[in-house]
């Protein structure tokens, strides 16, 4: 069963953006998104167990301070 179906694409776009796309247009979107979700599993081969996303608190804090400084 495909990971993402054209019907799902159409429903999400309708719900999120309130616009409709044709069945034909939904197919490549569903296929590409489904393939990418499937490929994301390949990243497990990189031994991610001890790795966190590289966002970091310093950036969070600096962003907050910049907003505060503008007030």
């Amino acid at each position, binding site marked *: 069963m495909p990971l993402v179906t054209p019907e799902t694409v159409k429903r999400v776009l309708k719900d999120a953006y309130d616009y409709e796309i044709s069945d034909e247009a939904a197919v490549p979107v569903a296929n590409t998104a489904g393939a*990418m979700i499937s490929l994301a599993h390949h990243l497990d081969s990189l031994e991610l167990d001890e790795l966190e996303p590289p966002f970091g608190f310093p950036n969070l804090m600096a962003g907050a301070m910049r907003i505060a400084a503008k007030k």
Partner: protein
Amino acid sequence: MAHSHDELLSFDVAALGAKLQAREISPVELTEAYLDRIQRTDEKLRAYITVTDDLARKAARKAEHEIVAGKWRGPFHGVPIGLKDLCYTKGIVTTGGSKILSDFKPPHDCTVWTRLARAGAILLGKLNLHEFAYGITSSNPHHGFVHNPYGLDRIPGGSSGGSAAAIVARSAAATIGTDTGGSIRIPAALCGCVGLKPTWSRVSRYGVLPLAYTLDHVGPITRTVRDAALMLNVIAGHDRNDSTSSRERVTDYAQSLDAEISGMKIGIVRELTDNLSADVQQSFTAAAQQLRELGATVDEVSIPSLPLSGIISGIVTWAEATEIHHQWMATRPQDYGDDVRRMLEIGMMIPGSAYVRAQRARTRVLAQATDALNNREVLIAPGAAIPAPKIGESRRFDADGGGVDVLSAILRFTSPFDVTGQPAIAIPTGLSPDGLPLSMQIIGRPFAEATVLQVASAYEKARGEVPAPPPL
């Protein structure tokens, strides 16, 4: 002494800086030469979206007064440049290559332009690009398809297609591009000029319309390696308006350009040596040999996770770009070009867990790339697997009937180093038998732009001149 327009346009930034300082040429005559060049070429190239001719003339007169008064500001004082039309310029329309922002006048300048303007650069205009930088063809449905000066039926690459086309067509002395999956290096490679993607965070992103926050880089596109170093000297450094910009020390990037590379160790990235077209293969092999003749040791090295970086790049870009465009997708979906809207639709389907996993995986790829640089100063790889494709070409077939997807034949060479954030430069290695530019990338350790530029400069001198494009 009066100069012909052709003579004025022949000088690179380094030469212009010296001649402007010595008052051998005037910013006013130089700016006129560039404006005239734009007028004569841009109908064919579509490199510019907006030409700021009145502002340029005014800035040129101001620069002339200052230089005559002995207030020379540096190598960019009086030098006419162009900015990719993602870069905010206060009061000047900044479209992002879109219909959605076709009337948008930013309330402030981006930091890159603030710094270049302070250095005395003269803005010729805003350069065409792939819509919202989301693609590599620069075939822009709203502002015209950008054409490659080496073959008008070819794409210039993208997304900074106008920035590279203007350099090669000599309708700007230097330009600014942005690079999320290769958008500085791809057009530089396909058009035959120099494109430097600095380390992520080396150059402020403040006031530059984002495509993907954690992958976007801003950098120079120029005729020569020295010009790229001079431009990086102006734009690099921490910016309090961009909390992610680095506080790492900025060095003089032009200082080591004449140093020898004898004794350096250089690694060819094994994962980027397969499925090359014959002309790319031959040119890249010759470039590696040239580096050996300069005294460097060149061997092959593996970054095993590198083939997975396309997945990482795709997921991160799709997810972040869709979030950035969320409001416009809700209100003006019909105003996007079909290709960009489709990418944003795909981004809606990417789960958050896939995004976080892709971000975690970046650390592993950078660790392996850093490992490859143990005992080596830089890595090298082709700029792309093929020369510039024809406009509209999506697959290329070889003599044996095999085919390659044009998009992946280009993106897989550049996107890994956006994922790792390492500095990488694209530099021409010559022309293919049918007269199209070929290119090599030189990749360094994070914040080792000076080393990348040093190797590129040594190679550039040894390589000699690359034939100019046919007259436009």
